[in-house]
């Protein structure tokens, strides 16, 4: 169930496409739930001494990892919200943060989402282009 104010009538970001994306998200969630319940149905409980714990969902994941020139297939068991087994990018991404922009006591942006190997650099976003006089 989605809603929009001033959505374009046509084009890539039309309401139809927005709703389609929402329905696809819903379908993916439903199939994930189904996979989870079928996994739990066949799993055995963990027994530690006298304690018995319900099985925690950790499906077997097959993933192709590309790192630099190399590419290989890895199979592993993964709990929900586990970090990726290998870095997403070999070099990492550079996040630029402007400190005290225009004399203000702020960081801009105030937060970044960074992965392992990413670097956070202080400084302006782009200073490579020469100013153009209008």
């Amino acid at each position: 169930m989605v809603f929009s104010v001033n959505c374009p009538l046509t084009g890539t970001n039309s309401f139809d496409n927005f709703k389609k994306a929402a329905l696809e998200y819903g379908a993916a969630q439903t199939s994930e739930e189904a996979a989870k319940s079928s996994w739990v149905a066949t799993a055995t409980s963990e027994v530690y001494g006298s304690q018995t714990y319900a099985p925690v969902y950790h499906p077997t994941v097959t993933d192709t990892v590309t790192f630099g020139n190399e590419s290989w297939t890895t199979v592993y068991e993964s709990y929900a919200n586990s970090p990726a087994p290998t870095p997403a990018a070999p070099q990492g991404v550079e996040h630029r943060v402007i400190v005290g922009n225009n004399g203000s006591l702020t960081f801009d942006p105030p937060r970044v989402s960074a992965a392992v190997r990413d670097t956070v650099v202080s400084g302006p976003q782009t200073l490579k282009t020469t100013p153009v006089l209008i």
Partner: protein
Amino acid sequence: MFAASLIAIPLISVVAAQQVHEVIVGGAAPNQISYQPYALSAAIGDIVRFTFKQKNHTVTQTSFANVCHPLLDEYTQKPVVDSGFQPVAADQTSEFPTWNYTVTTTEPVWMYCRQTGHCGQGKSNNARTSDRLLTAF
């Protein structure tokens, strides 16, 4: 410059009117999980008044790129626009809760219901929205 002033004049006249757009959220079957209407065009300063009917829904801003997830404020990491949950009992017939959203931009604003599972639900066999919007406006 001349073209810009031509565009500005009709916009100003609409702002002065400050229209109120009514939207019904939820309700009896088969509209339990829906916004009616599900899309509208509004000018800056217009108010969209959401009336919450049966079930427990929210109106929360999302983005086109990350649909079904709240659009978070950069500083506070809280949803930018969120009505909060508005529970309405199945037998309630009057005094439905309302929540107003004031339109602040002419850019598209995307909303969803953050109740578990609601975002990805809905009728997909509707007539094309573009056709309906064209006839509605």
